[in-house]
């Protein structure tokens, strides 16, 4: 977008897809890629001791955030890139979703349940739903500079200690 190289995320930082136990994926912000993006994260998450339910939680959170990129980040009909990256950090899964779209003017407002900038059948609960299904969620964004969402999910079995398994 805006004449900048298409293949470089701004906020993500380096090392994704290079460091062991990490991956980096780039897809166009198109609904056709939504199921693919969450399936990739789910497949990657299988290397941690997540339960089937926890993997479903992750799929849902990723789906909400990537859907946000698809609906909000780019002008209609001109989908730009979405990067999805993940890595294992101290036994937990860290997932990043970044776009190079229009950005969010008021992140706090955007995270409120029921707030949406688009009409139609959008509820504006994507962020709050995603937040419910992961342990941590943070949003970095500025108008015109894209959005990066970081999520962290810990396997509950790990929190209970190794003897729990």
């Amino acid at each position, binding site marked *: 977008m805006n004449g900048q190289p298409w293949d470089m995320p701004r906020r993500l930082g380096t090392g994704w897809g290079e460091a062991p136990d990490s991956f980096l994926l780039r897809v166009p912000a198109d*609904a056709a890629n939504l199921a693919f993006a969450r399936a990739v994260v789910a497949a990657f998450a299988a290397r941690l001791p997540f339960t089937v339910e926890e993997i479903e939680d992750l799929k*849902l959170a990723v*789906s909400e955030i990537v*859907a946000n990129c698809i609906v909000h980040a780019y002008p209609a009909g001109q989908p730009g890139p979405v990067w999805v990256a993940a890595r294992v950090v101290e036994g937990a899964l860290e997932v990043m979703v970044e776009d190079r779209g229009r950005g969010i003017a008021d992140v706090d407002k955007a995270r409120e*349940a029921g707030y949406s900038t688009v009409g139609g*059948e959008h509820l504006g*609960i994507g962020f709050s*739903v995603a937040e419910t299904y992961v342990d941590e969620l943070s949003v970095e964004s500025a108008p015109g500079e894209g959005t990066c969402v970081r999520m962290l999910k810990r396997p509950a079995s790990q929190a209970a200690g190794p003897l729990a398994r």
Partner: protein
Amino acid sequence: MLVARVEGELDLASAAQLRNPVEEAWNAGSDLRHIVLNLKGLSFLDSTGIAVILGRYRAALARGGRLVVVDANARVRRMLEISGALRLVELADSEAEALARLAPRKQGRGRRRRRRQHPT
């Protein structure tokens, strides 16, 4: 009433595949009042899917009808709860239960219409 059976993943990519045929059947049947959504075959539901369900709730409400969600599993119920949709839609364990609940009480006036989406 209109009965729709939903299968597979309901998200931003597939929302129109449920919304459009249900809307079409709803608009074609001006005497339809209630909507039953059978979610037995639903394997994934996100907030876009919830929005589609609530859109059908509003359609039913506008005709003085109700929306009944059938066979929602624990994950689906949790999403309905988190989104606030559970305060608006009704749950039923089976289509038979939903139909019995929505059927007119008076004998002889029981006009019932069934439309099925996504036939199994």
